[in-house]
């Protein structure tokens, strides 16, 4: 396993880090899309997430990491163990058989047995599925992902196999918009969307280059040095998860969220729902007992900017439109 750059050592890019933390605290927020300039640490941040996640309980020997808590009550208690939360990389150039799973060639050829070999979607169950350069993903894989992400289940009907298995994962994508747009159906699958830009501040840039250089020279030493900080973030995630249940969402906050979405004309209720959940997760991270304006304000842009109807002739970007609406509403 190659060492990944520590999450805590990423300089700046606060919105991106916050969105990733929120997804780690409450996966039901529905995934994160990180879009923006080259060389801004998009994939670094996502890959670093794996090191932050506390372990989870899973059924021993289950290729889908089944949650023992969800086993039927009358079934015999399965053996469980602690496993790392999967953060599965879907590399560019992956073929369909490896993504959805296929006939196990090894066993078929050597033993003549027709067995299912689970794919990446199976491995990602209960975890995260990361797609770098998500906008370059081939169309037929995109179709497939949209379907599975919506249903939480992977249905395989191929090569005489008929298999279905749970595939609930948080979709995390990154990419550069200049290399192609994302299909709207896929865009809609992401709960939060973050825009990253190259920092313009010179001391910040120097610090980024300095740390990156230090990491590349001595990955072990660098990781060790930042371990305490990463541990701190992991504890924050754990604490926030514990608090999440108890965070109140007052009617006033719900109303604010609804007003904001109406003002921006977002389609459907997904925007409001995401906004609400993200604000709640943020309150849990902050240690607040209830969702208030401050959380709504901070999370409005990532939760809503990709849900605005695109208007070709409107010069203002989505972020500007959200900010404007927030300012008017919370004035």
């Amino acid at each position: 396993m190659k060492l990944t750059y520590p999450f805590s050592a990423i300089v700046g890019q606060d919105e991106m880090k916050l969105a990733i933390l929120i997804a780690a605290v409450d996966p039901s927020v529905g995934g994160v899309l990180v879009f923006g300039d080259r060389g801004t640490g998009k994939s670094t941040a996502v890959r670093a997430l794996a090191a932050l996640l506390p372990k989870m309980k899973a059924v021993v020997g289950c290729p889908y990491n089944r949650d023992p808590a969800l086993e039927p009550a009358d079934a015999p208690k399965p053996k469980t163990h602690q496993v790392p939360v999967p953060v599965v990389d879907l590399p560019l150039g992956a073929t369909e058989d490896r993504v959805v799973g296929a006939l196990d060639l090894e066993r078929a050829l050597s033993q003549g047995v027709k067995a299912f070999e689970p794919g990446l979607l199976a491995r990602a169950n209960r975890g995260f599925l990361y797609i770098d350069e998500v906008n370059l993903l081939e169309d037929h894989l995109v179709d497939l992902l949209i379907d599975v992400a919506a249903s939480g289940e992977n249905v395989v009907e191929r090569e005489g196999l008929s298999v279905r298995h749970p595939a609930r994962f948080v979709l995390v994508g990154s990419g550069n918009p200049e290399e192609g747009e994302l299909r709207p159906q896929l865009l809609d699958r992401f709960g939060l969307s973050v825009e990253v830009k190259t920092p313009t501040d010179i001391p910040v840039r120097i610090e980024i280059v300095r740390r990156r250089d230090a990491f590349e020279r001595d990955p072990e030493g660098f990781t060790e040095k930042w371990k305490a900080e990463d541990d701190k973030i992991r504890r924050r995630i754990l604490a926030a998860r514990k608090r999440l249940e108890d965070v109140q969402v007052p009617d006033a906050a719900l109303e604010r969220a609804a007003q904001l979405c109406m003002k921006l004309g977002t389609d459907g209720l997904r925007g409001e729902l995401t906004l609400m959940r993200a604000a709640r997760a943020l309150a849990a991270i902050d240690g607040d007992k209830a969702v208030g304006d401050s959380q709504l304000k901070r999370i409005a842009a990532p939760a809503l900017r990709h849900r605005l109807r695109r208007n070709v002739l409107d010069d203002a970007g989505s972020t500007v439109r959200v900010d404007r609406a927030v300012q008017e509403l919370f004035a």
Partner: protein
Amino acid sequence: MSSKAWEDATLAAAVFAVDPAGIGGVHLRSPAGPVRDRWLAALSRALPAPPRRMPVGIADDRLLGGLDLAGTLQAGRPVAQRGLLADADGGVVLAVMAERLPPGTAAKMAAVMDRQEVVVERDGVALSHPTRFGVVAFDEGGPDDDPVPIALTDRLGLKLDFTQIPPREAPEIDFGDVSDARALLPRVRCGDEALQALVQAAVALGIASLRAPLHALRVACAHAALNGRETVEAEDAAAAARLVFAPRATQLPAPPEQEAPPEEPPPPPPDQQDPNQDPPPPDDEQQAEELKGPMEDQVLDAVLASLPPALLAQMQADYASRERARSSGKSGALHKGGHRGRPSGIRRGEPKAGQRLNLIATLRAAAPWQRVRGAIKPRVQVRPDDFHVTHYRQRRETTTIFVVDASGSSALNRMAEAKGAVELLLADCYVRRDKVAVIAFRGKAAELLLPPTRSLVRAKRSLAGLPGGGGTPLAAAVDAAGALAESIRRRGDTPLVVFLTDGRANVALDGTGGRPKAEADALDAAKRMLASGAATMLIDTSPQPAAQARKIAGAMQATYMPLPYAGAQTLSQVVRARAGG
């Protein structure tokens, strides 16, 4: 001048040979010829192993690795094979004709370079191999060609241009053995001053990507190692800046008195700052003081010395046009040919002309029956029943060129509708993956407002700024559209030209006014358009359908449509139907 360029090229090769993976690579713009050959020969001599050539159309299983079919059939069990990128570990990959490199391939290479690991999930094979390599990208592209995908070039620290170096000014080079420098490299340290100078210089020269200063840092270290030093000195930093920054510069540094504080206040330092970290970033004032230090001056001077102002201006224009060209996006450009395109499924059946046997699917189909068929290990028995072929959807991309009349007579009441139609089509492009281009004409000339693109952002910007008024240089517009259509076709795509005009030409090709000459020119241009064979359509924007527009449309055998019947919505439907969607 050119011998100076050759000196730099020599230095770049030496530096790159010291640390290929760290520096990432060399983007080499040059026609094939003795200059390039000499350079590559010198580089190859300095490398521990000869560079591995990567053909432009390399398939994913050869690039990244996958199932070894021959081995699998022979062994009777799946055998994985490594790809070229895994094999290149510790060496150099030579990407030939990089300007033709598909964006997908470039993105896969970039991902491997970033991770320093090949991760393969293909054809029943899951494997990963650590690998570190440098890339030399041969770019023979002319001004009309697509640029090398920036996903790749952004990761190549060095850029050289041999197009201006005549062979006689490029003597044979031999910088001998660089293995001493390679051995010294891990001990080379770069002080903070040099680091700051490099970052500062990159900003002053308008270089946005943060990979550039990192590359410069690597080059500086390699340069120091070549000179037997364990510490990066001003000379090393200056050489690095010259090699890495000069080809990327987009602006001249502002004179010192204009060096205002950064536009945006620095974000608050990360609250998880580790107290026992390296010295924390000093505060702004102190920073500014340090950055004015002598090292900073030397580094910038080095870049400027290698950049005569005229050259910079030219380079800037070159950069801008390449940026534009790049944004026009060739992502997803489909190749034609019997066995290419987007795979649209695998079906049972024997391979006929133009179809390719899908060996993996065939093998999968055969596998479960091996025992029944009494196969003798390690042979696999395959029967015709097992044959599967891959079906590809072969669709050329369509680029719709809108030629919008922005002249006084036509524009003002109709432009909104033209914009509306372009907008609707752009929304369509998401799904259809088509491109749109816009040419506007008014006054004396036609202007390419929007090169072929799918980017909403760009379309938005260019349309918003479309002014109206002036004469109607229809002939120039028709010719411009014809030229663009031709270049689109050369790329293997299908152009569709949609004119929105009232046809009242009143500016001739040579820019002079006068209706009769202008109309005659427009008719001639329309005939040339017909000869080009592009599908065309003319939407008459005059209040009443006019004879002129109909005549022009007739001359180029365009579908003619008067606008009164066509709102923006109808327009987009008609264009869509025409595009065969």
